[in-house]
């Protein structure tokens, strides 16, 4: 039996185009983009091409894209960079209680440095309401950071409220969006949403691991975290990870049309929800209007980890909560106020363009089997 990979929000299979490009850049076009000679210039062109591909996808200028080592670094750079740059303007930061750990733990660190952080709590379906944002932003708020799509349940957050709230409060705040789960999946347009900083990652869209980017709106100054030889305009120095960056660019270019792909995912997601809800004991945790790429559900009284290993033995790969916090009880589902038993049995499946309805059928059959055969003890 072949494998069924339904954990695409953890990571994706690298697409052929990205792998080929990375190979080419490692073995043939291996120059350092900072070298003055032609080999260096050719490498620089690869760098420019990747930058333009990412910028094009976001509808921003190439010079507004800074390559990093991934989502976590982009988030750290954005939060520390913005908070430190605006230290003299205030010390209040607004975020949500359902952010990724790389935001959450950076916020904890900023709190230790003396910043005060307001965490917006989600409702039962994982939603943040615009009114909460308006209430939280004050004239001394220097930064608002909000994820675009929640990585565990797939809710889409009300980003459009943030610039309005900042303007209404006349706050000097910068607006950061963590778009790691949104980029390449829904149309992410920082200009339209008046976003100042935006984090994205390659390996969620069939690019290589170890590379991501930070969009930094022209005119916005942040403090770098590292110092070095001037690469990425000194915002993120260090010799560019060319194979990864070029692979990132190739993966972006290989993305199918966002709208068409989204429609296909809506169909797949609807099918998945329908099949899952046919199973007794399965409760959906993702709200109806969530991003279709992610479906979170709880299966009976079977501990998520037990079910996950059961499925894994059948070659079906899903996740319990977010892959970055393996084993731990989901912070996000807890924040949503779900009962303990539902949290303990929560599984997340997440799709990519390579998934089919057959994959869903395989999953549903296996979940049914698991529910019938696995010993359950009350959680």
């Amino acid at each position, binding site marked *: 039996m072949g494998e069924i990979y339904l954990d695409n929000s953890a990571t994706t299979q690298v697409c052929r185009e990205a792998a080929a490009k990375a190979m080419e850049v490692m073995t043939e076009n291996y120059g350092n983009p900072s070298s*003055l000679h032609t080999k260096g*210039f050719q490498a620089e*062109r690869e760098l*420019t091409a990747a930058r333009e591909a990412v910028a094009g996808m976001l*509808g921003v*200028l190439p010079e507004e894209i800074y390559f990093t080592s991934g989502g976590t670094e982009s988030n750290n750079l954005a939060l520390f960079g913005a908070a430190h740059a605006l230290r003299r303007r205030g010390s209040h930061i607004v975020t949500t209680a359902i952010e990724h750990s790389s935001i959450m733990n950076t916020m904890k660190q900023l709190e230790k440095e003396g910043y005060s952080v307001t965490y917006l709590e989600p409702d039962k379906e994982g939603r943040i309401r615009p009114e909460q944002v308006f209430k939280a932003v004050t004239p001394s708020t220097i930064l608002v950071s909000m994820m675009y799509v929640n990585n565990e349940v797939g809710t889409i957050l009300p980003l459009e409220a943030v610039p*309005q709230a900042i303007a209404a409060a006349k706050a000097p705040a910068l607006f950061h969006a963590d778009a790691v789960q949104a980029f390449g999946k829904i149309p992410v347009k920082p200009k339209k949403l008046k976003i100042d900083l935006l984090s994205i990652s390659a390996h969620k869209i069939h690019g290589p691991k170890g590379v991501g980017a930070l969009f930094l709106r022209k005119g916005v100054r942040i403090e770098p975290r590292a110092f070095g030889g001037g690469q990425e305009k000194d915002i993120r120095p260090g010799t560019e990870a060319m194979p990864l960056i070029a692979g990132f660019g190739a993966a972006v270019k290989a993305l199918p049309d966002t709208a068409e792909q989204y429609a296909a995912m809506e169909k797949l997601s609807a099918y998945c929800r329908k099949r899952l809800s046919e199973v007794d004991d399965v409760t959906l945790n993702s709200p109806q209007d969530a991003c279709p790429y992610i479906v979170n559900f709880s299966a009976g009284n079977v501990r998520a980890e037990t079910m996950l290993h059961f499925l894994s033995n059948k070659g079906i790969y899903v996740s319990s909560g977010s892959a970055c916090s393996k084993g731990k009880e989901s912070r996000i589902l807890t924040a949503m106020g779900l009962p303990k038993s539902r949290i303990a049995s929560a599984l997340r499946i997440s799709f990519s363009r390579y998934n089919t309805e057959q994959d869903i059928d395989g999953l549903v059959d296996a979940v049914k089997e698991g529910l019938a055969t696995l010993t359950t003890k009350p959680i």
Partner: protein
Amino acid sequence: MDEVILIKLGEMVLKGLNRNTFEAALLRNIRRRLNRLGEFDIKAAQSTVYVTPSKGADLDAAVERIAKVFGIVAFSRACVVKKEMPAILEAAGEYLKSDLLAAKSFKVESKRSDKHFPLKSPEISSEVGGYLLKKYPHLCVDVHQPDLIVRVEIRDFGAYVHGQPLKGAGGIPVGTGGNAAILISGGIDSPVAAWMMAKRGLELTAVHFASPPYTSERAEQKVIDLLTRVSEYAGRMNLFIVPFAKVQEEIMAKCPEELFTIIMRRFMMRVSEEIARQEACSALITGESLGQVASQTIQAIACTDEAAKMPVFRPLIGMDKLEIIEIARKIQTFDISIQPFEDCCTVFTPKHPRTRPEIGDILTAEQALDCEKLIYDCVRNVRKLQIAPHRNGGIYER
């Protein structure tokens, strides 16, 4: 809700019998610029261009591109509904929702160019205003300095609701003024000069002088990047890269050092003029600004001019550096221009250039050179590249 872009025709409306030519050029330019953003229906009527997207077309990107088309003074993103009051009211309340929420005061301005519509303009305004006041109780009406003006237009094709109009690029449509060749370096000034003349309706051809091995591939790439930004306004253009090191070496070897720059510039004019002629251009454009450097004194410009027979346009001649930089920032060429690569003008710069050269001395000095052969070699070995806005993938095939 269906959205369209309404473009109000600017200066060109005044052009009398030429108006049709201008309008046709504008429509053509808009069509070209929106190419590849999806299907758009683009038509002109009632001194307005209507840009209507079909399903899937990227209207956000279209707005950004239209803001860079010359010949447009202002344009609006509008919501189009049936010419019935209930539909108009609903559109006013919904389409401008976030603006209305953010504003404290507003007023409604109505225009009725379709006189069959039963309500007169002031009646439309008062009805829409009343509806909005009820729907958004935090608002008050301020007819003098409102935060937001809600605009309602009853036109032949439908009723349009829009808020703040967007600023267009101004100028007249590219292509209506003929062709000219811009001498482009990698500096701040020449891209601005190119932009300014394109704004006056000229279609551009670009000429760049490269001096490998004294200058690098990166200097060339910089010019390509600069022109790509300019082409977002000026449209597609050809770039001719002239190998110039031989000419510079010859001048260096055979002419007085203090006259180097001026003689070099005369060669640039001659070579550019030859290329311009072959490309059916009727003028040259340079980024000179009076007194900025030694070769831009009145005497030096007179000597440079003597080498060219075509008219030479110098749109920056009376501008300060800071004014030029302001435009460079606006058209987003500044950050590219300040990248530190040697260009052909800086490599051989003499220590003490003559600021008041005399044409007699120059002509005497040039007798040491085989001018015709040098120019011929430059023109023969020129490389031609295509520059287009919004290139895909970023890498140019040579």
